[in-house]
Every structure is written in C-alpha cells, then in structure tokens.
C-alpha cells in the first residue's frame, strides 16, 4: 500500500479528525460537552493516535495540578481588617437598638 493511500485510510478510520482538530476539542471532550458524534470521532482518533493520547493526559495532569494549587493566602492585614469589621457588624446585630456595642464590650 502506498504511503498516501495509507495516510488517507488512517485519516478515514480516525473519523477524519486531524490531531490539530482533536487538540482543539480537548477541553470540550474533558468537559463532556461534545455531541455524541463528535465524542465518538475524538475517541476513535484517540484510540489510534498515541500523540493525541499523550496530549490528553498532559491536559488532564495540567488540570490536576491547577486543582491542587495551594490556596491563595489571605494577607494578614486583610484578615485582621475583616475580623474587625465582622466583630463590629456582629455587635450591631446583637444590640437591641441596632447601635454598636463594640465600645462598651471592650
């Protein structure tokens, strides 16, 4: 079988999607938002193409890395200010006439 025919046959069997097209559909594939037909074409391509399987894995590992990134630290001055404002708000909530009791409680 000549090379051109072999490539065409491979492309047909892979649902006619190129690696480039699969790479561009990968987010939708991972999200499960592709139509059944598109999903099947991507899956057929993935089944036959180790490079795109590697790309899919790379994207999955990228997502796992992002999901496990340490949380954004709260700067101490923000934390302090928030606590101060929260206490103030709570003291207003708990006082019968709605005025602040923060000063009297200190």
């Amino acid at each position, binding site marked *: 079988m000549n090379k051109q025919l072999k490539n065409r046959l491979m492309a047909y069997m892979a649902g006619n999607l*190129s690696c480039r097209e699969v790479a561009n559909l990968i*987010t939708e594939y991972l999200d499960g938002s592709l139509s059944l037909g598109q999903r099947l074409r991507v899956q057929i391509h993935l089944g036959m193409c180790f*490079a795109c399987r590697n*790309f899919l894995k790379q994207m999955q590992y990228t997502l796992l890395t992002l999901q496990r990134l340490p949380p954004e630290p709260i700067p101490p001055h923000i934390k302090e200010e*928030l606590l101060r404002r929260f206490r103030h708000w709570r003291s207003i909530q708990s006082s019968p006439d709605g005025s602040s009791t923060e000063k009297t409680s200190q």
Partner: protein
Amino acid sequence: MLRLALAYVPSHAVAEEVVQEAWMGVFEGIGRFEGRSSFQTWLFRIVTNRAKTRGVRERRYEPFGLGNAGDEEEGPSIEDSLFVTQGDLQGHWVTPPQAWEPDTPERALLSKECREAITRAIDGLPPTQRQVMMLRDIEGVSSEDTCNILEISETNQRVLLHRARIKVRKVLAEYLSHEPRSVK
C-alpha cells in the same frame, strides 16, 4: 477572590478593598441567600458585582465589555507551529507530545519554581481567561455557574478556558523539559 476582583479594578489595593466589601456584603446579606445557587457561586457573584461597580468608578472596566470576552484574543489557541501545515501529514503533530509520568502534578507542585511559574502564567493571562480558569479549574465552579457569574456565553467560556489551559500546559511542559531528574 483577589484574582477575580483584579480583572476589573486597577490595583491590588483596590481589589483587596473589593474583597473586604464583598465579605461584608456576605455577612449583611446572608439572610437573603435563598440557596438557589451554591454559596460559593453566590459569593463569587458578589465579588464580581462589587468589582465591576468599583471598576466603573475607577474607569478600569467598561460595562458589557466582558460579554465579548472571547474576542479579546485572536488566532488559534494552540500554536500553528506545533502542527504540520502542508502535505499528506497536514494537521499532524510536528513533534508528538511526550508521555508525562502519573506523578507529574505532585512533582510540579513540590517544586517552588514550578508553582511560581504556574502562578505567573495564570496572573499573566488576559483577565477574562484568568477569571474563567480561576472559577472552573481552581475553585471547581461548574461551567453553568461560571457563565452566570461572569455573564458570558457558554461558547465564550469554553474558548477562554481552552486558551488558558493550553497556556498553563505549555508552562508545565517547559518546566518538565528542564526538570532536574533524580538518578535512580
């Protein structure tokens, strides 16, 4: 939350104020929370609404600008140079992606250098891509809620997320290609 607010306001200091105001809004409005969305979605919506209002005041954010966020970057999300552009192999990888080890996320996160590179990459994303990635991939918000919070279409959200993920994958790939390997 700070990163989310930063997309609308001009400085870190203003974003910090927005986050504080948002939390106060949460304390004050918790009684009005009806549970129609998750608490997280409600919280992020308060942050974005307050940041938008503040951004308009600071002339950083133009209302309705974010709705067309998918247009903020033209061109393909994956570089053309990665694929063969002519001949029988058109559309195939020029250099096939390498297999990454299953412990890649752990290794990447253990490295301060890699963590910093990823954080820099996220901070360097166009604002709307950064917001979508923060909500979807870091905070775990659903695509539907992300669209509601940011007031963008489902298609826009997917395009922005895809572009952002491709960029972070590239950073990770660059780190892995230079990663010092331990001798076994």
